[in-house]
């Protein structure tokens, strides 16, 4: 066990034993933060201290001091600025300490956002390389991952940013998005391990984000655009709420049923479980019992995933697979939380031509939004302001009943006459 921890932790153990006499510790006392070393959940403070004592990077000490100060005063002390790499206008989140006279070692603490592989897959070679480059130029702190899906390398000074980026870039990494442009995307594990993946979201993610890479590095739209790719309506990337463009795998035909496995499921868990935990929980009452056999009425199924989740061995998505596209998801700022709403009920997403058609659609949507949106207005807000009808006209899509939960309940519109 100890050997597996590697050299790094051996050094830590050494530094801990040395640290018994307080004056030899690299870090200053942080009694508030130390409270977060207690308890069973892994402590980020213990991690920071381990790293700081091993590397003795002054920035880490300064940042710990400033964080301890924040815990005492209950205020934050970072301000933004403009640090970037050659040719890019985004990707480095600039942080200067507002109280650098108090904590000069924390004067600069910029973050580099890095785009991981779709599905957040790693091999140890690429991750070790990333860690080595990061320790060489930066603080060694990493957040895995940010809410938009970036690897966040936290803590670098401006003078090291370009060289750090060059080495990362040579190793196959590129900066993530920031500001009013395309943002880093997120995918669930997809066909890599999940039986419910209805399209190759990892491939689509990579291709789409490569296509928009210029808009990601040089933001020039009204505001940000986020894409998330979920393999099925379980929506493990929370795309409907968290992204402007939610690409959710789905299917058109019937759920595939393995009769033997249904029987085995009922034998193991009982008929009550089938009724109470599957049939009664179907949101559209699409499932019934017919002489003890489970029947799914496909016309009533809305592809919610519940029965598939409850009976993973017996049920699987249909064979005619593709995606639903929802648009407009965002969180609370200004107008309140906005769930994305359905714009394209179904699109095939198998061939390269399918992906190209999707990219073309997205380009049209973004062009419309770029022309019609106001400053600092997410696409969902623009659609709400001008109306879904004008949006559909603008991007050339036909109205579809699946876009609404019901037709309008008021007569206040201009009909053709």
């Amino acid at each position, binding site marked *: *066990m100890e050997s*597996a921890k*590697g050299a790094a932790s051996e050094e830590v153990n050494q530094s801990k034993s040395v640290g018994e006499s307080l004056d030899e510790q690299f870090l200053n006392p942080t009694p508030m933060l130390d*409270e*977060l070393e*207690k*308890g*069973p*959940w*892994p*402590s*980020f403070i213990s*991690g920071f201290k381990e*790293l700081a004592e091993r590397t003795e990077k002054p920035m880490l000490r300064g940042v710990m001091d400033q*964080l301890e100060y924040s*815990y005492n*005063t*209950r*205020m*934050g002390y970072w301000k933004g600025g403009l640090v970037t*790499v050659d040719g*890019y206008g985004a990707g480095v989140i600039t942080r200067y300490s507002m109280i650098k006279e108090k904590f000069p070692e924390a004067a600069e*603490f910029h973050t580099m956002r890095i*785009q991981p592989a779709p*599905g*957040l897959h*790693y091999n*140890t070679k690429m*991750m*070790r390389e990333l860690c080595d480059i*990061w320790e060489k130029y930066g603080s060694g*702190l*990493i*957040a895995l991952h940010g*809410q938009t899906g970036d690897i966040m390398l936290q803590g670098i000074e401006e*003078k090291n940013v*370009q060289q750090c980026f060059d080495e990362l870039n040579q190793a196959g990494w*590129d900066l993530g998005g920031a500001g009013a442009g395309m943002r*880093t995307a*997120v995918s669930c594990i997809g066909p*890599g*391990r999940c*039986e419910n993946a209805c399209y190759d979201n990892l491939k689509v*993610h990579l291709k789409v984000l*490569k296509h928009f*890479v210029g808009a*990601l590095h040089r933001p020039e739209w009204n505001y940000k655009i986020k894409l998330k790719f979920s393999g099925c*309506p379980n*929506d493990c990337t*929370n795309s409907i*709420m968290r992204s402007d463009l939610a690409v*959710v795998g789905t299917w058109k035909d019937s759920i595939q049923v393995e009769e033997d496995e249904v029987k085995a499921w009922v034998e193991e868990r009982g008929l009550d479980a089938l009724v109470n*935990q599957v049939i009664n929980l179907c949101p559209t009452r699409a499932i019934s019992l017919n002489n003890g056999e489970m029947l799914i009425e496909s016309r009533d199924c809305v592809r*919610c995933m519940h029965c598939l989740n*409850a009976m993973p061995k017996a049920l699987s998505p249909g064979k005619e697979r593709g995606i639903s596209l929802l648009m407009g998801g965002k*969180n*609370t*700022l200004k107008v*309140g939380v906005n769930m994305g709403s359905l714009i394209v009920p179904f699109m095939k997403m198998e061939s390269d031509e399918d992906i190209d058609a999707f990219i073309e659609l997205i380009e049209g949507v973004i062009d419309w939004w770029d022309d019609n949106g106001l400053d*600092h207005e997410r696409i969902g807000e623009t659609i709400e302001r001008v109306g879904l009808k004008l949006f559909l006209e603008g991007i050339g899509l036909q109205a579809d009943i699946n876009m609404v939960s019901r037709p309008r309940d008021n007569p206040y519109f201009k009909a053709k006459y």
Partner: protein
Amino acid sequence: MSTPEKKWKTVESGPHTYEDALHPVVLKNYGKWKYHEIPKPGVLKHVAENGDVIYTVRAGTPRQDTVDMIRRVCDVADKYSDGYFRFTVRNNVEFLTPNEENVELMIRELEAMGLPVGGTGMCISSVSHTQGWLHCDIPATDASGVVKSIMDTVYNDFRGMQMPNKVRLSTSCCSINCGGQADIAVVVKHTRPPRINHDLLPLVCELPKAVARCPVAAIRPTVVNGKRSLMVDEAKCMCCGACFGACPAMEINHPEHSKFAIWVGGKNSNARSKPSTMSIVAHNLPNNPPRWPEVTEVIGKILYAYKEGGQPWERIGEWINRIGWKRFFQETSLTFDEDMIDSYRHARTTFNQSAHVRF
């Protein structure tokens, strides 16, 4: 920043490639998985159409990691999962191996490293959260510390699968709520309008931009000591903090008056009910570092009542839909108050437009 000796020409490559990061068994069965089981908490068993099996061991992480910790994760992956691993969107690390005998060895090693194995099935998974005082430029608190405090109290429910359904948590350091909608969310709620620094404001703020940022048109231009500045109509202001992002001289954060609110019933999945947004069920809780006991206490009350009363597969919002809000407040011993009645856009859609009453 460019140096004269710079030789490397940037490749705008976008996301890192993924095929080289997939375990060979994953690559071989890509898109051909048949079903999965959860043999025990923290372990998944996926079976492919051809009978191939891959085991996943899942463990919680602090999210705010270091190169030291990540290198140890790499050591585990090299030893037990052929050098491959991945992360979930809730900051858990996963190791995929076709060798069943590696599962227990890996669990022991991860737990010995202090990384709890769990986060599967009907459990309380790790918190999706924001940056806070460590790095953000507008935070009222430190989400990482709040999260650590929460996860210490629900540690056993991360490592077990005894909840009615999965519980997703989030924590956010301001009302923008980057942590997201969740079954239970802990989100800062400012209670006091911004304090304006009139000396700084004309130097650092684009006035029309800050005016436009206000969703209730409470910000107006003014002149203070002969300098152009902004004023806030405090009767209109709802303390959202949107202006602070546009104008750092409109300080919304306050050590006493930036409070915590607790929200419940958010759901991102489409399973059964449609995705849903959260409702506020507690507020005015103090921002009390380093352990935020008032916040963890409320979360504990909600989780306890849900664990007791939820039926299989019911998420927290679905449980409340069945038992009603009245019973929710009774069973959690939280108090409904008039500020929890929506007064913003679409408020009417949250009123009870029926004679359905719970006594």
